[in-house]
Structures are given as C-alpha cells and as structure tokens.
C-alpha cells in the first residue's frame, strides 16, 4: 500500500509535468490544428536555460534559494515564450494556408534544429542540476515520507494549471482564444485578431513547456539534450489521451499518463513502461476515438 501511494505521488508529479507540456500541444492544436513537434525541444531549451541562469549568474547568492527559484522560473518561462513566438513566425506562419502535413514536417525540422542547436551549444553530455535549489525536507503525509521536491512540483503544476484555466475561462483574451479554436474564420469576422491570438498561444504554450523543463531539472537533478524528444512524445500522447484541443483534457491526460507509467514501472517492468503507456493510449482510443474528454463531433452530412 505504501509503495502504491508513493508510486501514485511520483506519477502525479511526473504527470503534472506531462500535463504542462501537453497544454502547449493542445493549445496550439486548438487554434491552428497543428501538432507542434518542436514543442518538446522548447521544453529542453527551458531546462538548459534554467541551468545556465542558476549556475552562471549566482542568482541564489543574491536572492536566496526561494527568490532564486521564482526568478529563474519567470525568466525561463519568458525566454522560452520568446523562442515559441519566433518559431511560429519563422516556421509556421508561412505554411498557415498550406496542407496540414507540410506544417508538421516543418515542425519536425524545427525539432531537429533545436535539439542539435542545444547539443552544439552545450555538448552532447548530460548535465547535473545544482542541488542547492532542491528542497531537502521531507513531509510526513498519511504515514508516508514524501520528498519535498515532489510536493513542490505537484503544487507548482497545479497552480499553473489553475491559473491557465482561469485565464482561458474568465478573461476576454481567453474568450478570444476559445473563439479562434472553434472557428478562426468566424472569429476574424467578429473582430478578433487571429494572428495575435496565435502569437499569444505560441507565447503561453512554450512558456509553460519551458517552465516544465526547469521542473524536470529540479525534480530529477539531471538533463540531456534528447530529453525533449521523449517528454514531448509523452506529452503529445497525454494531449491526445485527453482529447486534443481540449485544455482540461490535456491536464487529465497528463496526470493519467504519469500515474499509468509510474504504476507500470513499479508493478510490471521498468523496461516496458513506455510500451505500456502507448498500449493504454491505443486501448483508450479504440474505446473513445477522440480521447477521454474529446468532443464526439458528428459530421454534418
């Protein structure tokens, strides 16, 4: 039982990270019907930027651990948001009216580009995150010893998701994003600047993805330049699992995928955990072809 609960909490922490990355996929998909394959690599960039800021700028010395954490967090989110914005302008905007798969290939190219750019700048080895930021306390919860970092990651992802939900549901800008997701043409006619909404989505999604990269660095203490490929694929899986284009779906899908993986790794076999995650995805899609929260849009005949 204790092992189960520990696995569950671990799954929730990893799942929260998947969910943050999945939000980037799903928001972009929502407004552009594009799978942004480069999103996983923006996540990597976030992790490396976080490392650089922490190691080279001595922020911790100036602001103390908590202040440094917050400052780096914000800076990473802003910088990766900028990368996302530029990505959209350069690689996707010229292809907006082309076939959907052309943009997908452009995205795959961007992914290869980013991954190799990181490798060229930092080298092909893995890096260890400075551990002075890693909270070293443990919390006693329901008879469990829970590492503080696990709670920190769960707390941060939940907070970010709640903030994003509030933004999408409560603000005028959020309404504009929802409108463009439903019908860009109609939204344009209603006076919404579709280009601006898309740019905004390409700021928010990559910003969240970059922040998630930083969290992985803190949580696992180790990063490498290919991590975006596997995390990106997992997060994309999570977005599909929940129903792509659907924001609560991405959150649910991410958490679910994290838990499934943790349980598979704990109870079946570590080596099969990725395969099991995909098998669960396939099973769920066979039962619900548009994901758990995906709309079943009956095509009008």
């Amino acid at each position, binding site marked *: 039982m204790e092992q189960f609960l520990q696995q569950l909490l671990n799954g929730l922490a990893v799942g929260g990270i998947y969910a943050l990355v999945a939000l980037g996929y799903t928001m972009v998909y929502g407004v552009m019907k594009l799978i942004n394959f480069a999103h996983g690599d923006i996540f990597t960039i976030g992790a490396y930027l976080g490392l650089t800021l922490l190691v080279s700028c001595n922020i911790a010395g100036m602001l103390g651990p908590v202040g440094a954490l917050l400052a780096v967090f914000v800076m990473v989110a802003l910088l990766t948001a900028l990368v996302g914005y530029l990505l959209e302008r350069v690689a996707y905007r010229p*292809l907006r009216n082309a076939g959907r*798969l052309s943009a997908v290939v452009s995205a795959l*190219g961007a992914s290869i580009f980013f991954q190799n750019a990181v490798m060229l700048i930092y080298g092909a080895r893995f890096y260890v995150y400075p551990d002075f930021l890693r909270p070293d306390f443990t919390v006693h919860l329901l008879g469990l010893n829970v590492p503080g970092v696990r709670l920190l990651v769960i707390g941060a992802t939940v907070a970010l998701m709640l903030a994003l939900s509030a933004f999408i549901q409560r603000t005028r800008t959020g309404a504009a994003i929802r409108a463009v997701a439903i019908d860009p043409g109609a939204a344009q006619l209603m006076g919404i600047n579709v280009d601006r909404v898309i740019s905004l989505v390409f700021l928010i999604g990559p910003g969240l993805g970059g922040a998630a990269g930083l969290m992985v660095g803190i949580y696992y203490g180790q990063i490498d330049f290919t991590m975006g490929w596997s995390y990106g694929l997992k997060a994309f899986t999570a977005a599909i699992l929940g129903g792509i284009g659907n924001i609560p779906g991405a959150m649910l899908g991410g958490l679910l995928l994290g838990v499934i993986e943790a349980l598979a790794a704990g109870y079946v076999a570590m080596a099969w955990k990725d395969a099991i995650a995909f098998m669960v995805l396939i099973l769920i899609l066979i039962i619900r072809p548009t994901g758990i929260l995906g709309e079943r849009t009956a095509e009008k005949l």
Partner: protein
Amino acid sequence: MKLQDIRTPMGFGLAFLLLVLPFLCNAYWLDVCVSIGLYALLALSLNVILGQAGIFHMGHAAFFAVGAYTTSILNTLYHWPVLWTMPLAGCAAAFFALAVARPIIHLRGDYLLIVTIGIVEIVRIALLNDVGGLTGGSNGIFGISRPTFFGFRISKGIQFYYLVWCMVGVSLLLFHCLWHSRFGRALNYIKEDDIAAEGCGVNVTHYKLAAFVLGAFWAGMAGTVYAAKMTTIAPESFNFMESVIIFAVVILSGGSQLGVLISTFLFIGLPELLREFSNARMLIFGFAMMAMMIWRPQGLLPPRRRRYQAGALLDRSSCAARESVRGGSAV
C-alpha cells in the same frame, strides 16, 4: 516553376543516371546510393498509405522492422536463404499491419498519427526486451548471410545497388499501374472526402486497410534487403526518427513517384553531403527541412492527372447517349 512540364525527360534522365552511377562514384557514395534506394522503397510504399490514401501514418519503421527481423530470424536460426525469406518478410509485415491497423483504422487524422507512432515505439521496446527470446535484445541479430540469386552471391556494394534499384524500378511500375486503376482512385476518393467516398459505394475501411497491408508488405521486403546488406540489425535502426524521415520524404515529394525519388535523394543524400560540417550537419538538416517546406508547401511534384480515353466518347450526341443509358427500360 516548370517542374511539371519536364517530368518525363526528368524521369528518363534520372533512370539513365541511376544506371551508370555505380561506375561514376566511389565505394562510399555507392553505399549511400544503396541506402537511398532502400529509403526510396520505403517511401514509395508509404506514399500509397500517406500520399494516396491520405492516412496519417508515422509508423512505417515498425513494418520495416518486422520484415528485417523475420528475415534475420529465419536466416540465422533456420538457415533459410535470405532472398527466399523476402516474400515471408513481406507477409509477416503485412499480417502485423492488418492486426494492428484493424482496430484503429477508423481513428481520425492526428489520433491515428500518435497511434502509429506508438506502434513504432512498442515494436522497438519489444525488440529491445528480446521478446520471445528471438530478437537478441539491444544487441540485435548478427551473422545474417549474404543473399544468393540463382547461385550468384550478392555481397559487393555494386551488386546490392542493382538489386535495390531493380526493386525500386519494379515498384515504380507496379504502383504506377495501381495509381491508374480502380484501386488508386478509391484511395484518392478517400483522401479527398471519406464520407462521400463511402456514400458512393467505396468500402472505405477495406481500402484503408488494403493500403496499410500493401505498404507494410513492401516495407517488409525492404527489411529483408536491409538485413542482407547490413548482416546485422538492432532495434535502434527502427526507431521513431526513421519513421519521421520516411514520413517527411513522402510529404516533401508532393505525392508523385518521381517526387518521392527526388525527395529521397534530398533527404538521405543531403546529410551525407553535409558530413564536413560534422556536428552541425543535423542542425543544417533540420533547418533545410523547414526551408524546403516553406519553399514548396505543396511538395515537389504533385501527382499528374490520370488520363482517360474519353475524348472519343464526346462525339456521341447527347440524345443517343440518353437512349443508350435508358436501355430497353424506356417506358
């Protein structure tokens, strides 16, 4: 761009070039050309699924792997001659495709895309974990023998070159006939509008599955050639990145077979040309992928319109035609 108009001479020029190429280049580039031929086989078969039927399939490496492993296991364990295993490798891949595609074939666009990616990953992990004790885990299988062709042993680069490119030639011909038939049109209708296709009497599920099975069969045969050429195979040769490359080749091609060939040369040849940039070559490659799509979003060469001998039928007066259609049933 006048690529459309010079297509036939371009095709002949390419064919001639391919015929004499082995005498013009060194062993290294010959090897690259064998690779290009293999990828061309894979891309031509994926083109049936992705280009012609419009099914978002990013998992072609899985079928390639099934073929390669079938050949390797039959050859190393049971000592079957390599070329004899080719039809079996094709069939194994085709059956595998049928089994995995059947339950998921009704999924739409991007949902199918992630599922096919998932299939590649599941296959790769299964191979890594030495499923059934046959696949040799992460080391893979080595000691696959060279193919013999009626007593003639194929081992040199140039022999593989002609073997592979002959297969490409035959595939081009067969897929060309397929494209200009009822079958090719059915795939085309499905790509344009699957609901309308079904409503006109096209069995959409059947044709989608048939496209998958046919593409997988070809990928399986390509797997045989790959195993024979490398003599050793490992799970990492069939990862998601391989699928991505084949996928990108087909999208950049625009859908025509000549386009697929040119696009394969660009995708597989370019990284080799960039060798001198050593570490930066994949960076340039990624950038080139973006640039090529932005330069030609519709792909290099869209398929040519099918031609029909219908002009002669125009002369019939419409009245006569009406009578003939009515047949004897006119009241």
